């Protein structure tokens, strides 16, 4: 039960949200019937047509052009194994073409879990008494961040429930606190945000604290399903408010925005096309597309039966397909594969899905990094994570697969944000910086945090391999990379381009 104070806060906010919705200036871009018509018109696709679309996607990756919904519908309706092999191969090719063979690593920090909403799939829903909710105070947050940076992370996403205790003012305070934490060479250099949709003045305040990306998941774009999952009278029950949450963020000057879907609430094919329509709407309105896209698959949560029994749970095979299609349909976007997936699945999907970012060493209980040895704390978590490996174990696995583990946060500290970032990603040249900064941040990890095994493969194989890539592809940076590596060996940190 909500307290009287929580009820009042929610009701006042709901009234303001509904007023905003009444005067919403943006055209609705999710037409459920149109999406289903598009999917159903492309059943039994012609084989050659499908292969031509895959070839088009490959060409598009040098211009940042997205596939059309019709094109994506053709691909998603195919069950030709030969075509899917081509799609997986192309997804991996596009990712390497745009970003290089690096994986950016981050870790989420759950800052607050109390929530006034009652979403059917969420362990943190207000009525779920079996999960203990808590909000970190600034000292607790500092401890949490210290524990996190002591593992080697430089980049985080801060996650908040929607509650009067975690309003915009609290979010600003936490961001500022996160950036103050220093532990040895450890620090957070980029804090992304996953929080409820805000009003423009609230976004402006959050923007001023110096965030990376603002992430809002629609969860499901399907109107009827949205209504079923998010009870009327809750803040999250307001579909349009959430749908245009990223529009308002850009309006407030936040130009790195990130949509996402919780796959498993409704048909994955519908959700995928809807996410494409979302990207198209952002492009059309602001000329800026999604900085990243997220596609978490629904997993178990304490006292949350829907998470295990939804009729739309996505199979492993379909999951691989949808991840690869995201890369083909929106070649420039960052693609985030999370620790909700099991280690074997993650390593398979990263090879065939065009994934560019992954979390590692993840703990999602509020205060979870302070108890790092405890992999899951079900009664304190929104859901259960399936890849509880340490950051170091994860980094080792990436190295063994030939990837460059990257802790890069350079772009947004060098003014490569929004309209200055998008052309680099769209023209597939951002990899020139990604690899150089990946080398420098991975070297820091090797010097300060890595196990002997990671140090060995990192210094003997990974760094030389990617340094050679820089020499061959971006020779104008090669000398500076070598100089900066030497500076790092002499205890200088945070070298970047």
């Amino acid at each position: 039960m909500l307290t009287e104070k929580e009820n009042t806060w929610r009701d006042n906010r709901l009234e303001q949200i509904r007023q905003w919705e009444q005067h919403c200036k943006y055209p609705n871009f999710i037409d459920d019937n149109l999406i289903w018509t598009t999917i159903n018109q492309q059943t039994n696709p012609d084989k050659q047509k499908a292969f031509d679309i895959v070839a088009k996607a490959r060409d598009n990756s040098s211009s940042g052009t997205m596939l059309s919904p019709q094109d994506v519908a053709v691909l998603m309706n195919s069950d030709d194994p030969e075509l899917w092999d081509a799609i997986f191969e192309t997804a991996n090719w596009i990712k390497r073409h745009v970003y290089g063979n690096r994986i950016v690593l981050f870790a989420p920090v759950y800052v607050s879990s109390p929530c006034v909403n009652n979403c059917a799939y969420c362990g943190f829903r207000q009525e779920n008494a079996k999960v203990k909710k808590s909000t970190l105070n600034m000292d607790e947050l500092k401890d949490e961040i210290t524990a996190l940076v002591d593992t080697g992370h430089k980049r985080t996403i801060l996650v908040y429930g929607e509650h009067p205790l975690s309003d915009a003012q609290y979010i600003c305070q936490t961001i500022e606190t996160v950036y103050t934490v220093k532990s040895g060479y450890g620090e957070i250099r980029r804090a992304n945000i996953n929080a409820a949709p805000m009003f423009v003045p609230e976004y402006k305040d959050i923007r001023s604290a110096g965030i990376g990306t603002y992430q809002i998941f629609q969860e499901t774009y399907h109107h009827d399903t949205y209504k079923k999952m998010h009870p009327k009278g809750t803040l999250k029950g307001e579909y349009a408010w959430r749908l245009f949450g990223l529009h308002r963020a850009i309006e407030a000057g936040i130009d790195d925005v990130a949509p996402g879907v919780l796959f498993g609430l409704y048909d994955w094919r519908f959700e995928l096309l809807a996410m494409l329509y979302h990207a198209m709407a952002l492009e059309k309105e602001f000329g800026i597309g999604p900085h990243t896209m997220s596609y978490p698959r629904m997993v178990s949560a304490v006292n949350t039966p829907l998470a295990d029994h939804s009729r739309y749970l996505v199979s492993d095979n379909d999951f691989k397909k949808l991840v690869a299609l995201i890369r083909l349909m929106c070649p420039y976007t960052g693609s985030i594969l999370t620790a909700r997936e099991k280690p074997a699945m993650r390593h398979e999907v990263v090879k065939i899905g065009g994934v560019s970012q992954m979390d590692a060493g993840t703990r999602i209980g509020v205060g979870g990094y302070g108890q790092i040895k405890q992999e899951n704390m079900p009664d304190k978590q929104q859901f259960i994570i399936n890849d509880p490996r340490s950051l170091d174990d994860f980094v080792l696995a990436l190295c063994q697969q030939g990837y460059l583990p990257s802790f890069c946060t350079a772009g947004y500290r060098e003014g490569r944000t929004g309209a200055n970032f998008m052309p680099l990603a769209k023209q597939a040249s951002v990899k020139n910086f990604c690899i150089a900064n990946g080398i420098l941040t991975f070297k820091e990890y090797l010097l300060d945090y890595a196990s002997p095994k990671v140090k060995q493969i990192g210094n003997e194989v990974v760094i030389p391999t990617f340094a050679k890539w820089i020499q061959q592809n971006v020779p104008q940076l090669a000398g500076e990379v070598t100089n900066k590596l030497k500076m790092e060996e002499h205890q200088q940190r945070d070298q970047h381009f």
Partner: protein
Amino acid sequence: MLTPQTKTALENTAKNICRQHHLSQFYFAQSLGPRRHYLAGYGQQTFNPAQHLTLSENVVVFWQGTLPDQARTLIKQALRPIAQMIEREISMP
């Protein structure tokens, strides 16, 4: 937030500086904590290390190419009124 007029003025200024000093790129950014938030600029990315100069409390410029110390000083002086204008606009609610 910058007005469209200011944005255009910054783009033109950046263009002039690029031409005058043979720079491949020059752009203005706003300091927001650790973030340097792109405001406006001109030119092409050449994937050389970018240099930067702080114009005022919240305004930074980046460039690619070579700028001797004397030119940096001149640019900093010349851009002072522009930095003040940006500061005024970004401080508006």
